[in-house]
């Protein structure tokens, strides 16, 4: 489903990704952990071409991701991305946020786009907020609209970039719940998060990124109960 081969990324002279190789199979939930600045968010941003890579190869469902080509738009339609800061369109209602890309990118008739958007908002528990503008929604609700917006495109793969980090603690649960439901429904997901509880319960596999490299990876239980890497051990201790 997703394959990274020796991916390198520089920001100017800063070498942020130093040869990342990983694969994610269909239906798998992979959680990426690591300290701030380790490069974990950059990996996600490279996967859907928001950031170009300088070396290596990224493949989504057999297609090469090239941030500079027009084709990357086709790939992005199939890869949902949820941001830390929600990034809802402020002058569109929840419903329009979700249906906009269906109408203009997928060229769906408005009625069809609307019914899909309603269905997606129902799925994230926001059927009563269809006509609300983002400024009238809580952070947790906004993030759920953002998830619905990505889901509406019927993606093969969902990327979550620290989606609960900007939320008040009491709102984190509702977003994680939606993500857990999604995982249980068989969605392929790559999740960058600091929520270790979520990682333990939902992830099939965990990747620990340290200084732009995968320092350790393995099944979730193994990572948390028997970490091998020294950095991972101190990281887990510092978080738990």
């Amino acid at each position, binding site marked *: 489903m997703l394959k990274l081969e020796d991916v390198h990324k520089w920001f100017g002279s800063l070498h942020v990704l130093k040869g990342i190789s990983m694969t994610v199979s269909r239906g798998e939930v992979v959680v990426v952990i690591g300290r701030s600045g380790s490069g974990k968010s950059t990996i996600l941003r490279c996967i*859907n071409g*928001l950031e170009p890579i300088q070396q290596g190869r990224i493949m989504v469902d057999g297609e090469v991701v090239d941030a500079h080509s027009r084709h990357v*738009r*086709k790939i*992005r*339609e199939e*890869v*949902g*991305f949820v*941001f830390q*800061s929600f*990034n*809802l*369109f*402020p*002058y*569109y209602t929840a419903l329009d946020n979700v249906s*906009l*890309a269906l109408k*203009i*990118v997928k060229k769906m008739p408005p009625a069809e786009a609307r019914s899909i958007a309603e269905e997606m908002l129902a799925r994230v528990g926001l059927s009563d907020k269809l006509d609300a*503008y*983002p*400024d*009238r929604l809580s952070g947790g609700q906004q993030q759920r609209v*953002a998830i619905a*917006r*990505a889901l509406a*495109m019927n993606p093969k793969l969902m990327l979550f970039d620290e989606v609960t980090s900007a939320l008040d603690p009491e709102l984190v649960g509702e977003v994680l719940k939606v993500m857990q439901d999604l995982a249980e429904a068989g969605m392929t997901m790559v999740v960058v998060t600091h929520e270790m509880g979520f990682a333990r319960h939902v992830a099939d596999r965990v990747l620990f990124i340290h200084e732009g490299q995968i320092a350790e990876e393995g099944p979730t239980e193994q990572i948390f109960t028997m970490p091998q890497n020294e950095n991972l051990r101190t990281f887990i201790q510092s978080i738990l």
Partner: protein
Amino acid sequence: MPELFVAFSYKDILFLLQAALVTIAMCAMAFSCGMPVALVIGLIRTARRFPALRWVGWTYVEIFRGTPLLMQIFIAFFGLSILGLELPRFVAVSIPLILYTGAYMGEIVRAGVEAVPRGQWEAGSSLGMSYRQLMGYVVAPVAVRIMIPPSVGFLVQLVKGTSLAYVVGYVELTRAGYIISQSTYATMLVFTLVGVIYFGINYPLSLASQRLEARLKRHA
């Protein structure tokens, strides 16, 4: 005092009002033709991937902002006729106003587009939107709201700027005031009236923009 105004009649007021219409027409012309120029200039100034285009936009803006409008009107008016282009006066005066509008509004467009948070672009692109779709559906709704106050500021400046067309003998509001004051000697009265008329054009613009701003501010 009264004998000073003897020659001043309602006909003169009509003449001034007529000239005010000319001023408004010039503004409308400059603004409606200048906006497409401004859009092009503003957008190429934000084109990250085309440095050459960005440079063209930058040069254009710097030239038209860095020189007096009066000089631009002179050059356009007399320069065009030296080149053998005999254009109607209205057009000859409008050309520098259009280019001037293009430069100032171009900067407003650029600033508006650049003020749209990066996350908005990224959210749109991650949904597979093209540059055009991003601009039209995601960036524009945010940018236009940011652009309203400086645009009205510019429009007010433009209304006053059209008065410079009097130097080439074009009869707009200021020139009309000059003509009447020459024949009636009621200089103070005439130019006070001219000022009131300019204010009468600009003040509703400001009011309209305040209303529009308040209306569009909802959900921000």
